[in-house]
C-alpha cells in the first residue's frame, strides 16, 4: 500500500508513473476506447441511431428497386452502385446524428475538458461511427442478397465495404464535427461530404462491381490501391487538423 511507504519512496514511485512514455500512449488508447464504449453503450440502450440508419437504408434500396425497375439482368450491373449510394446516405444520417447528440447534450464540451489529446476524441468518434456503419452494412448486405438474388457473400466485396467505410467515416466524422457547429447543420453535412467522398465512392463501386462480376484481380487492384491511399491520407490529415475544428 502506498500509504505505508516513507514519503520519499512515494514521491519517487509517483514520479516514475508520470514520466514514462508508454503510459502517455496507453492513456490515449484508453481515451479512445472510452469514447467508443460510451457511444456503443448509449446506442445499445436506445438503439435510435441504428434503427434510423437501417430503416433509411432499406427504404433507399426499395426506392431504387422501383425507380430503376431492376430486372434480373440489370440488377447485376447496378447492384454495386445502388449499394454504395445507400451506404453513403445512411452513413450521412449516422454521422450527423452522432455528432448532434454529442453537441446538444454538452458531451462535446465535457470531452474537451478532459485531459486527453484532442485527436483521441476524433479517433473515438470516427471508430464509433465506423462501427455503426458496419453494423448497418452487415444487415443490409444479406437482405439485399435475399431480396434480389445477388450473391453478396464475397470476401472481396466485404473487404471493399470495409475499406470504403473507413475512408467515409474518417472524412465524415471530421466534417460532421464542423457542420454541427453551424446554423444549417444536418443539411450541410451531405453538401460538405459528397464532393470529398467521390474518391472513395468511385473506386469502391468499381471494385465491388469487379468482385461481383468475377473480373481479374489485375483490374481490381488499382481501385483497392486508391481506397487504401484515400484512407491513409485522410486519416492523417484529419488527425492533424482536428484540433482546429474543436478549439474554442
Amino acid at each position, binding site marked *: 500500500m502506498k500509504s505505508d511507504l516513507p514519503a520519499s519512496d512515494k514521491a519517487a514511485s509517483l514520479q516514475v508513473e508520470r514520466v514514462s512514455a508508454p503510459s502517455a500512449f496507453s492513456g490515449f488508447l484508453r481515451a479512445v476506447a472510452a469514447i467508443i464504449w460510451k457511444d456503443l453503450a448509449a446506442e445499445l440502450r436506445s438503439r435510435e441511431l441504428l434503427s434510423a440508419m437501417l430503416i433509411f437504408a432499406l427504404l433507399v434500396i426499395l426506392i431504387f428497386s422501383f425507380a430503376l425497375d431492376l430486372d434480373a439482368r440489370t440488377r447485376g450491373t447496378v447492384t454495386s452502385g445502388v449499394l454504395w449510394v445507400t451506404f453513403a446516405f445512411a452513413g450521412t444520417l449516422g454521422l450527423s446524428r452522432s455528432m448532434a447528440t454529442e453537441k446538444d447534450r454538452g458531451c462535446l464540451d465535457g470531452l474537451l475538458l478532459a485531459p486527453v489529446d484532442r485527436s483521441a476524441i476524433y479517433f473515438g468518434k470516427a471508430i464509433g461511427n465506423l462501427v455503426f456503419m458496419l453494423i448497418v452494412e452487415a444487415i443490409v448486405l444479406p437482405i439485399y442478397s435475399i431480396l434480389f438474388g445477388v450473391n453478396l457473400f464475397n470476401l472481396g466485396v466485404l473487404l471493399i465495404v470495409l475499406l470504403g467505410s473507413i475512408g467515409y467515416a474518417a472524412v465524415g466524422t471530421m466534417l460532421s464535427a464542423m457542420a454541427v457547429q453551424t446554423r444549417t*447543420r444536418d443539411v450541410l453535412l451531405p453538401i460538405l461530404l459528397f*464532393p470529398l467522398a467521390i*474518391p472513395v465512392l*468511385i473506386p469502391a463501386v*468499381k471494385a465491388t462491381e469487379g468482385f461481383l462480376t468475377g473480373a481479374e484481380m489485375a483490374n481490381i487492384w488499382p481501385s483497392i490501391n486508391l481506397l487504401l491511399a484515400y484512407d491513409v491520407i485522410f486519416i492523417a*490529415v484529419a488527425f492533424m487538423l482536428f484540433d*482546429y*475544428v474543436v478549439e474554442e
Partner: protein
Amino acid sequence: MDTKPRLLTILDIITGVLFAIAVGMVFFYAPLEATMGEVQRVFYFHVSSAWVGSLGFAVALVAGILYLVKGDRKWDVVEVAAVEISLVFFFITIASGYIWSALAWHMTVWQAMEPRLATAAIVELVYAAYMLLRQGIEDPDRRARFGAIYVILGFVTVPLTFLSIRLLRSIHPVLFGPGSPNAQGDMAMTSEMYTTFFFSLFVFSVLFVDLLWHRIRLGRLASQVEQLRLKVTH
C-alpha cells in the same frame, strides 16, 4: 475603404489593354486550325481559365495553411478572394470545355467526361460547399478556421479525384472519334499558336492578380463592417 492605390489603377488599365490585345491575337493572329476550324479558338481562353482557376486554388490553400498557423485574419481575406476568383474561372473552364467537346467532337456532356474536366467540376462543387459552409457560421474566427480546414481537405481530394475518374474511364473505354479530347496534347501547334497561347496565359495571370487585389480590398472592407456590426449589436 482606403483610397484606391495608384498602382491598382495602373494595373487595371494595363490588364484591360493586354486583354484586348489577347482577344485580337486569338481572332486575327492565330491561324485557323485544320480539323476543328473556328471552334478551336476557344482553346486559348479555356486553358488559360483553367490555369487561373488552379492558381486561385493554390493561393487559397497557402492562405488557409497560413491562417491556421498564424491566426492572422488577413490570410482568411486572401483565401476567400482566391476561392471566389477560382470559382468563376473554373466555371468558365468547365462551360467552355463542354461546349468545345460538343461542337468539335459532337459529344454529349456525359460522353465527354474527361478526367481533368470532371475534376474541375468537382472542385467547383467543393467551392460551392465552401461558400455554404461559410454562410452558415456567424463567428468570424470559426468561419475562418473551418474555411481553411475545408480548403485543405478539398485540395487533398483533388489528385485522388482525378485518379478515380481516370480509373472510371479506363475500365469502360468510350469510343472516341478521331481527334478525341484525350488527344488534346497531340494537337499540332504552329509557332503563332504557341505565341498566342503563352500570351493568353500571361494575360490571364495578370488578370488574376488584378482581380485578387480588388477582391482583397473588398474583403477587408467587409470584415471592417462586420467588426463594427458585432460591436454595435453586442
